[in-house]
């Protein structure tokens, strides 16, 4: 898929007044949203909204907005952020080796939800999502050490956060 294809989809969306379009194909995923006036950029919370509404005063995990690709004016993919390790330790995706992982790709997460454990010297730190959205990628490996600030998950923020 290239820019021409995306442009075609956007045109199709505009013609049929489709406001949202999502497609997944061979590891490639695209999500397009149109504004109410037929093409205004949206789905892009500004820095201040992000830090005030969703992060402050607490952030059990460090967050950073990932560089969001806007293919061309009029279209913006929804905002993806990375949840980063708040401390050095061993990364665990589940409370025990036998249990299911806290989150997988596609898991909807919300603020208070535990998404992983980081252990250091037998201190088990349950990391909470602190954001609302959908996990799009698990970036760290279960049972492996993680560094301070290392990205753990990619999360597509939910629309409500930006408004």
């Amino acid at each position, binding site marked *: 898929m290239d820019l021409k294809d995306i442009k075609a989809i956007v045109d199709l969306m505009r013609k049929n007044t489709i406001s949202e379009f999502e497609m997944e194909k061979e590891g490639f995923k695209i999500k397009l949203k149109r504004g109410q006036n037929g093409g205004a950029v949206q789905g892009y919370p500004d820095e201040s909204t992000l830090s005030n509404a969703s992060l402050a005063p*607490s952030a059990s995990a460090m967050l950073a907005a990932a560089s969001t690709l806007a293919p061309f004016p009029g279209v913006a993919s929804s905002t993806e952020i990375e949840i980063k390790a*708040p401390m050095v330790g*061993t990364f665990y995706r589940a409370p025990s*080796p*036998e249990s299911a992982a806290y989150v997988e790709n596609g898991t909807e997460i919300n603020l208070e939800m535990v998404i992983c454990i980081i252990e250091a010297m*037998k201190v*088990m730190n349950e990391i909470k999502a602190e954001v609302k959205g959908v996990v799009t990628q698990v970036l760290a490996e*279960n049972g492996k050490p993680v560094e301070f600030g290392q990205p753990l998950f990619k999360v597509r923020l939910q629309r409500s956060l930006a408004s």
Partner: protein
Amino acid sequence: MSNAGKSKMSMDAQILSALRAAGPGTISGGELAQKLGISRAAIWARIEEMRSLGYDIEATPHLGYRLARAPDVLHADDLLSRLGAVEVIGRDIRVFQQTTSTSDVVEKLARDGVEEGAVVFAESQTRGRGRLGRPWVSPAGKGLWFSVLLRPDIRPQATTQLVVAAAVALTRAIRSQTSCQPEIKWPNDILVGGKKVAGILTELNAELDQVKYVILGIGIDVNLDTGDFPAEVRRSATSLKIETGESWDRAALAAAVLRELDQAYTRIKTGQFAVLAEEWERQCVTLNRRVAVRSGAQVIHGRAESLDSEGALLVRTQHGRLEQVIGGDVTLEK
């Protein structure tokens, strides 16, 4: 501040304290009534109640009451009376007959905004847990299974200080209350005779740069018999009773552990962590030993050389590299 615990003490705790203070002597009903500001009849009713719980309280005409023997049960009032004045840890004690895990109960208390220092004991746990959901055997009336709620004003990384403090407090209490010589296996397993008798699991709830609360989950295998342990852990786990051939007073040990924990916690709060770290290092059997560190599928073999300032284990691998170990399972090798 140090009287906070005392003022909250219930009638029963105060009666038990007075009986204990009298030691082998007696204390009269009139004296007790005056001390507590209630009638002699009310004292008698409380004593009857405690007798029904198993407290052997003798009454001698014209002399008064004497505590001949306390039962081998955990009783919040009894623990408060044994503990006396504390700064933080143990000023609120709750005992359950059975619970899933005492840490589950403390987590609820934490979310309900209960003050730090609260301690929850259970006579038995149906889902006592160790690291990574590993089960912790907690048979009724044989051990001390409890969790402590703390709200330290520290950064999340500094929580390792509590790990050190808890290990030191446990070894001190076990040494003072039993004939055992406990040692610490990094970071905070307590060993007697080379086998584990107690474990500490710390659960942290933190924001980026501030701890919200910490739950210290502690299990001490006091009077367990070999048959109480599942076959697969018998080689690595033991109890104070198995090691000494004697049963130990659980309530006395519990009070001693809480007192030591309270003192260690006060040390941390007043910037005296170095004292604890030194004591911890002296008792750490992991140092100068060949170890295997398993983390997920990865295993590091080497020699544990020292601890760094945060308490991490520094392991010299067979390739000569110095690795900082903060997690995983550490096994001592021959």
